[in-house]
């Protein structure tokens, strides 16, 4: 078995353009017969390019595409038993509906009476009986979409490719078509490969989702896997809403992030730097002091089915979906069930913290002024004579409501014994030897963890000040 189960295999597919841009790089995928697979990602992630290579409209620069184990990499599209539903339908405007649907069958020299029977059957399948003699222009977007699907399905392809087929429809029609497409898939047993940027669409319809970003596969799995166990911060952020925190494993099944120590179910080695993902609907509000962490409600938005509550805890922000409302300014506690905390081993150890803009328009963190100009950080902004700050569009920036996210690499931070010299103070809560340097975790007085790389050995629990050169910092505006 094994091999014959896969209807299509993509092996090390790379597509590079003449200007050196790689739309897809080293893409590997196996699709089983009858599966509903969705390529999901933001625009420009390479999902459509991959689909076009499967259809044969685009050829990979390197790599191999196998259909039923046979290479089809360089086969022209008309020689592939694969049909496509195009984003803007691409119905032939000079043919009526019957001629459009019959096009593929005529190409295969199918007898006329067979064509007639099949067209009738497929029109019934898409719920448009009797439309044979209508012209394309008289059809609504939704009807054109159904005809486009019928035109592809009538050829009984081994694989049906769908390139954002519902993108041009309105929300209500889209929801209906999602259900119908899924039903068609279940009924016909044809393999569907579906491209979309709509995560909800992908989660609703697919057996398997391939999340893509910048030409690379980020994660492949069932909708449940992708949603509950995102592999990295990109996937977590792209699929649904997430609270994403940097943190560290402090013990067996214990992780510290967002200023609290949480029990979790992911067994990651103590001392590992982690990224923790908590879905907004998994955070439980408690009375202050009863939760694992506490904070102050910053904003409450009614969303119909629930309230979206933003709570500020120390220097962190937690977004919560709750059926219970809260009032801004209220102190609340928060707890999360261990199985609802998803721990990922951090790939990127960049330290990120939020700095304020003080009334003199200087950047301030922990009472220290960072020697840089605010107008330089916020692109296109300028100071007016009366002392207000305007952004590139001439709108006033309120320093009290604006935060600047500062990021700095672990190797750019230095530790010092002279506590007063440092921008922020803390103690060494963890250290790991990484071969040529030590990686330290400094737990600061502001309840944040900083990761610092240093070639010299410091001791656990040493009190240190952190020196951060301003020219090594990167800044981003956060409203």
């Amino acid at each position: 078995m094994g091999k014959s189960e896969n209807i299509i295999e993509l092996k090390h597919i790379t597509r590079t353009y003449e200007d050196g841009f790689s739309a897809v790089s080293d893409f590997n995928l196996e699709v089983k017969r009858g599966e509903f697979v969705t390529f999901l990602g933001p625009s420009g992630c390479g999902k459509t390019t991959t689909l076009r290579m499967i259809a044969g409209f685009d050829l990979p620069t390197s790599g191999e595409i196998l259909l039923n184990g046979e290479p089809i990499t360089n086969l022209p599209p008309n020689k592939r038993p694969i049909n496509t539903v195009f984003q803007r339908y691409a119905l032939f405007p000079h043919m009526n509906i019957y001629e459009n649907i019959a096009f593929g069958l005529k190409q295969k020299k199918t007898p006329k009476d067979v064509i007639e029977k099949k067209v009738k059957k497929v029109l019934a399948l898409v719920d448009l009986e009797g439309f044979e003699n209508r012209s394309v222009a008289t059809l609504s977007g939704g009807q054109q979409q159904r005809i486009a699907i019928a035109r592809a399905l009538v050829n009984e392809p081994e694989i049906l490719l769908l390139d954002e087929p519902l993108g041009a429809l309105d929300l209500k029609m889209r929801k209906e078509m999602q259900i119908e497409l899924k039903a068609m898939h279940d009924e016909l047993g044809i393999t569907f490969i579906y491209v979309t940027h709509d995560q909800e669409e992908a989660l609703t319809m697919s057996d398997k989702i391939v999340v893509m970003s910048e030409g690379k596969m980020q994660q492949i799995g069932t909708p449940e896997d992708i949603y509950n166990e995102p592999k990295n911060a990109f996937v977590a952020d792209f699929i649904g809403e997430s609270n994403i925190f940097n943190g560290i494993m402090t013990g067996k099944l214990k992780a510290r992030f967002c200023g609290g120590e949480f029990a979790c179910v992911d067994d990651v080695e103590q001392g590992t730097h982690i990224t923790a993902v908590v879905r907004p609907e998994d955070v439980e509000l408690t009375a202050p002091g009863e939760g694992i962490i506490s904070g102050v409600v910053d904003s409450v938005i009614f969303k119909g089915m629930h309230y979206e509550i933003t709570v500020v805890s120390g220097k962190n922000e937690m977004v919560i979906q709750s059926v219970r409302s809260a009032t801004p300014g209220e102190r609340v506690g928060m707890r999360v069930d261990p199985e609802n905390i998803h721990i990922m081993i951090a790939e990127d150890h960049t330290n990120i913290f939020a700095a304020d803009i003080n009334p003199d328009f200087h950047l301030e963190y922990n009472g220290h002024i960072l020697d840089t100009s605010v107008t330089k950080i916020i692109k296109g902004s300028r100071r007016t004579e009366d002392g207000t700050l305007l952004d590139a569009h001439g709108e006033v920036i309120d320093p009290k409501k604006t935060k600047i996210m500062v990021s700095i690499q672990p190797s750019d931070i230095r530790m010092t014994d002279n506590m007063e010299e440092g921008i922020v103070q803390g103690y060494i809560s963890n250290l790991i030897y990484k071969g040529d340097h030590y990686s330290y975790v400094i737990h600061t007085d502001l309840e944040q963890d900083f990761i610092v790389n240093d070639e010299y050995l410091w001791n656990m629990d040493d009190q240190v000040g952190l020196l951060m050169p301003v020219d090594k910092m990167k800044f981003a505006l956060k409203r």
Partner: protein
Amino acid sequence: MRKLSFSRKSLGIPYALFLLVFVIAPLLVLFYYAFTDGQGQFTIANLTGFFTNPNTMGTLCYSFALAIVTTAVCLLLAYPIAYILAFSNMKSKSVILMLFVMPMWINFSLRITALKEVLTVLEGNLAMHPFLNAVIGMTYDFLPFMILPIYTTISKLDKALREAAMDLGASELETFLKITLPLSVPGIISGVSMVFLPAMTNYVVLDMLYNSTYIMGSLIGSYFAAYNWHGGSMIALILLGIICLFTLLTNGSEEENTRGGALL
């Protein structure tokens, strides 16, 4: 004091005046001369004369033949050029387009004179091939009017349509025959009507080529040169009738595709 006020209607006055002076009035004059004789009496002799005179009828048939051949040659040359143009990348596109549009920037008489010299060198005596030279001269002059509308139509075609045809099993050739060609018919009709009618009447090209070929334009010119305004007007009127008929036949598809000409 009265305020000056413009209604939208009053903006149409200059156009109406223009139409009256330069279209309606000359047409009335044309009608008057066509249906009167030298004494100002009503007559249809000019009309019957045209259709009974073997010379004028011969010229009409010959003009038709010349216009048909010229249009066909233009179409056969223009379609592949327009097709290549539509599917070439940005850089080579502008070069090819320039190649065919640039001659239009050079004075017409200069172009034709240059062509005459080239043909003289090639053929020796221009009088040897009057029909061939007439076709060459007119094709040279009218080719861009055929290329541009076809090019506009093809380049506006959705790329996905051809991909869809290939996807449904059509080869490159079948895709061209079943999708690209039928969908570029509006451009072809637009190009044909822009070339066919001038090819029947534009005798200046022929005159400048010292061409003995006699077409409808030359015929009208000769009548007026001989002070036979009545006969000349009737021929002009008959030609107008032919043009009207032709326009009616092609009207439907032409409307949406006149942008090619506007490029010039």
